[in-house]
């Protein structure tokens, strides 16, 4: 039963802590509003907030879909075509070495103030964790399994399908979890740099008008929907790698 109540208990605890900090520091509402004004702001600005959430959510979801697709394709290409690997691996590292935030203004300049630049930011952020986790998952396959497949005279596509890809799925799943957690960053940063809708835009907008409670309301809505998205993806991934029993590591240590 505790399993079901735990998220609610945690949320209550965090809200109480928040209220406690407000009370302790005596911060004015234009620096740190308490939970109650923020809830009021959520209620009063609900339709507007939902409109902006829709924009941000679409950006995140499209970014995730495209980023995961590109990550899978690149990892598979490097596995199937070893010669290309030596050219692609440095590119992968370079793609990660450039701070994506620094690219945001350039992307907005090239792709405009619409959704495309935000989707591109999200794709850039999640491509690396997805691609590298899937690729290294396929590299770490047990040599004995490959030897078994070789002795069985398996065809390359069949070995890929029945052995190599499934054995890399648990690793891929952890890459996608990371991607789901960081995807909102891409969309929000993109919106900060230049946009006319989205929760990131609305936060800056509210900040400029000293509506700090509205800013926190947007932040709360963003956090809540990011969490929901993460839990949905986590649930789907657990279904995908159904054979991975969730073992309690702490029990073994």
């Amino acid at each position, binding site marked *: 039963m505790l399993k079901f109540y735990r998220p609610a208990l945690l949320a209550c605890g965090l809200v109480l802590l928040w209220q406690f900090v407000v009370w302790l520091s005596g911060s004015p509402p234009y620096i740190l509003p308490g939970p109650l004004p923020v809830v009021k702001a959520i209620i009063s600005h609900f339709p507007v907030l939902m409109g902006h959430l829709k924009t941000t959510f679409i950006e995140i979801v499209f970014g995730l879909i495209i980023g995961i697709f590109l990550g899978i394709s690149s990892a598979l290409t490097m596995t199937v075509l070893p010669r290309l690997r030596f050219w692609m691996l440095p590119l992968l590292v370079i793609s990660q070495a450039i701070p994506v935030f620094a690219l945001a203004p350039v992307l907005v300049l090239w792709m405009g103030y619409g959704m495309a630049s935000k989707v591109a930011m999200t794709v850039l952020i999640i491509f690396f964790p997805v691609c590298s986790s899937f690729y290294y998952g396929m590299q770490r396959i047990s040599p*004995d399994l490959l030897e078994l497949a070789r*002795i069985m*005279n398996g065809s390359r596509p069949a070995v890929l399908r*029945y052995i190599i890809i499934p054995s890399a799925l648990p690793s891929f799943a952890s890459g996608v979890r990371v991607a789901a957690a960081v995807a909102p960053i891409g969309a929000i940063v993109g919106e900060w740099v230049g946009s006319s809708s989205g929760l990131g835009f609305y936060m800056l907008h509210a900040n400029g008008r000293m509506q700090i409670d509205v800013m926190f309301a947007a932040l709360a809505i963003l956090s809540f929907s990011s969490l929901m998205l993460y839990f949905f993806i986590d649930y789907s991934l657990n279904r995908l790698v159904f054979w991975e029993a969730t073992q309690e590591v702490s029990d073994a240590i």
Partner: protein
Amino acid sequence: MAEQGIVFTDVSLAFGGHVLFQKLSFSLAPGSCTCLLGPSGCGKSTILKLIAGNPELDFSGTILCAGHGKKAGKTAWMAQQDLLLPWLNVQDNVLLGAKLRGRFNIEKCSKAQQLLEQAGLGRVMQSLPATLSGGMRQRVALLRTLMEEREIILMDEPFSALDALTRFTLQDLSAQLTRGATVLLVTHDPMEALRMANRILVLGGDPVEIQNDIILQGSPPRSVDDAEVVKRYPQLLALLMLEQGPPC
């Protein structure tokens, strides 16, 4: 006769400057079970890898399997780890070879089901390997090896990770089901060799050579109180002690 089984002629192999085999020659009759015994690191598993055609081993000499130099499609391999794929159910694991070769059909499927029933695994056909005990998993691995229908079956300490009773029943099942195939079984257990084999080769020395070649009477699986087993066990144990060297 030797043309059909396994023939090693002047096989030499070195690992990083250390000579493992120097002109090793032997031949194994078709349709019989041969056990390789010897101290660890004496190259028992390497002999299996050579027969399986492992591309990483650069040897000289010739190795013929069932009359061919080309090993592809001649051998089936069973290892100490069951190597079952956790995402496939028991039946699909048994059919793995057929799936990998794209030769999966109804006949293969019904043969797998028949084998599973025969091995007492009929009830767990649709279960995932994670739900089975170690003995059951190794039984599935044995059936997967048999489903390959190869002339030569290579077994690398297949029962060594099991408890004594499970090992005993699996030895019986394996001896029954592999009858007629050319089996090469690597083991470190002299009792297993005596129960399972038609012939025992004891390896040892540096470079490794065949120290003893023992032909056993009667057909496997032998019971533990079989006259041949009772007579040979102390002898074999003494021989292995000698090969192992003094305890350190």
